[in-house]
């Protein structure tokens, strides 16, 4: 399959699903409706998380507001046993994988360094050092290939990450080894305050060809286009065709994190251009209406589900216990050095003097 010069879009401005020579949507009506529910729920949780931070329940939160379609659409195209290596904003991907959002928030509340069992959901822990996780995906994928297994790896990273050396190393290594991995770049236009125009001098998707793999740019706010393009890349990898680089063009409607103030570097007009009819959820609703899959009852049901989930998340977060002191040391080594063991014993004895703040 060749790289095209045109950004792939399947939903037009009126919500019609267009035909495309390469990228197909093979989802039934239930699946299509489920996508909508996931979009609404993820956004609702994301907003709740921001509120929780503002209320002092989370130390910080990195919102995925505006990127729901890119995340949910792509995650849907993967098999549950395909391994995902995310960055730190992939609430939508985590939701599709069945990771409890409370477990994601435990990280942002300072409860744990990672809140969920990676193996249970085939969803790796968040990677805070920018652009370091694509290499892990490449390693995992190569391992799968050596085992003759048809599982693939997918890795998520942003536009800013593509400037890091590790991402280039990952693309190169994957291409040389024909690793079964999909590189999914969410170009949300901003790396904190640095706009894409200052981040790269050439379109990100074009790097694919430079490294020796197909590269494709997709309308990241068109959930069906994202799904279709991802599915194509996933199939290629699974069939032994090697890696693909996908650039999903979207927009970070929220701040970089809750500590960031975007009003200092971008305008309300710019944001407005990506909202309203351009908002990914609005666009998809328009499609559903057009396709006759929409009803008020359906919308109410989805809304109620979202509220219920958000309330549960809120209650769980507010009730999380203080982590025990043993978390400091328990998992640093499989076989810890005596120096650490003794050090911790001394700490435990010291802490025992005081009224316990810890579990």
């Amino acid at each position, binding site marked *: 399959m060749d790289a095209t010069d045109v950004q792939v879009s399947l939903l037009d401005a009126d919500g019609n699903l267009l035909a495309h020579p390469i990228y197909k949507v093979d989802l039934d009506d239930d699946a299509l409706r489920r996508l909508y529910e996931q979009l609404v729920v993820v956004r609702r949780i994301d907003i709740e998380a921001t509120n929780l931070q503002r209320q002092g329940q989370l130390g910080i939160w990195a919102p995925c507001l505006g990127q729901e379609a890119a995340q949910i659409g792509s995650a849907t195209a993967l098999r549950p046993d395909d*391994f995902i*290596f995310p960055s730190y904003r992939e609430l939508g991907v985590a939701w599709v994988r069945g990771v409890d959002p409370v477990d994601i928030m435990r990280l942002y509340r300072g409860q*744990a*360094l*990672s809140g969920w*069992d*990676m*193996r249970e959901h085939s969803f*790796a*822990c968040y*990677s805070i*050092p920018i652009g*370091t996780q*694509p*290499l*892990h*995906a*490449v*390693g*995992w*994928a*190569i*391992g*799968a290939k*050596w085992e003759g297994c048809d599982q693939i*790896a997918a890795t998520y990273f942003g536009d800013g990450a593509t400037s890091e*050396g*590790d991402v280039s*190393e*990952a693309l*190169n*290594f994957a291409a*040389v080894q024909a690793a079964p991995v999909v590189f999914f770049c969410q170009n949300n236009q901003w790396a904190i305050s640095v706009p894409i125009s200052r981040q790269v001098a050439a379109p990100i998707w074009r790097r694919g060809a430079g490294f020796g793999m197909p590269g494709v740019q997709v309308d990241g706010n068109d959930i069906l286009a994202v799904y279709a393009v991802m599915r194509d890349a996933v199939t290629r990898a699974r069939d032994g065709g090697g890696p693909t680089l996908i650039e999903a063009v979207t927009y970070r409607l929220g701040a970089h994190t809750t500590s960031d103030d975007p009003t200092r570097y971008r305008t309300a007009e710019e944001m407005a251009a990506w909202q309203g009819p351009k908002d990914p959820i609005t666009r998809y609703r328009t499609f559903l209406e057009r396709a006759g899959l929409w009803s008020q009852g359906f919308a109410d049901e989805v809304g109620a589900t979202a509220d219920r989930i958000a309330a549960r998340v809120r209650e769980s977060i507010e009730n999380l216990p203080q982590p025990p002191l043993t978390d400091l040391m*328990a*998992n*640093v*080594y*499989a*076989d*810890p*050095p*005596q*120096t*650490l063991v003794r050090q911790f014993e001394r700490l435990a004895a010291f802490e025992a003097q005081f009224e316990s703040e810890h579990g």
Partner: protein
Amino acid sequence: MAAVTMAKALNTALLDALEGDDKVVVLGEDVGRLGGVFRVTDGLQARFGEQRVVDTPLAESAIIGVSVGLAVRGWRPVPEMQFDGFSYPAFDQITSHLAKYRNRSAGTVPMPVVVRIPYGGGIGAVEHHSESPEAYYAHTAGLKVVSPSNPADAYSLLREAIESEDPVIFLEPKRRYWVKQDVELPVRTAPIGKAEVVRPGADLTVVAYGPMVKVALDAAEAARQEGMGDLEVIDLRSLVPLDVDTLVDSATRTGHMVVVHEAAQFCGFGAEVAARVTEEAFLSLEAPVLRCTGLDIPYPPARLEEAHLPGVDRLLDTVRRSLDY
């Protein structure tokens, strides 16, 4: 019993490890077809194939990052950094991920990875080929740091490191690659975490590891001949875990201790030994724990490296300072 070089012992250890566990894989620059720039991986690709012994692109960060991903999958990678000075591009992957993955994942995803790094000077090389970066790695919680001084330990420690569930930075003293020892392989010597008293003595303890163990033994012999004193020499063998008990026992007996390493003195590993032994054996010490080390400078050009590296003379000078205190 045959005379085996350290390089050969390491080669045999890798061979036996690859043989014994299908999940062990060797990767690095020039490790496959060439057999490694020091021939430590010689013949392995021919025997085990390109998938078990991988010639990677020239990308240190990738070598380690890919190893992390392989480990998540359940493999046991043994990546090589071609030279000490070239391990730095991988520093982020080593310290941010290799060292932390197990802890971050609450123990569910271990990193049974061994990063082999030829290190140290004394080989007349150009810049960046004679570094001693052990302090950076020893200071990184989650890593183990091991350095053999002889072929038998090289074999045993490498086998054990590969079998370990913890990530190990395996530092091979490149100036000792060609030193021979009569040893029957396979062999298991003392475990990781155990220091060895390789020469018992009564008057002063010299603590060394890797390339400096030989210097310490030579110095001890010279001290005996010159009547300077009866030196005890300890080969640490692993820096993390550190065998504090053996060090304290020795310091208690001799009352004098000198640590020797090639790396710079300032914030070097010797500082950790000195602080720890002083804390735990204070009342037995007749003199402060002294350090005989490389200078606090970037590694010098080859023609000056002898002045920079601790040799027998400088070590004995430090020994004398301790005994005369």
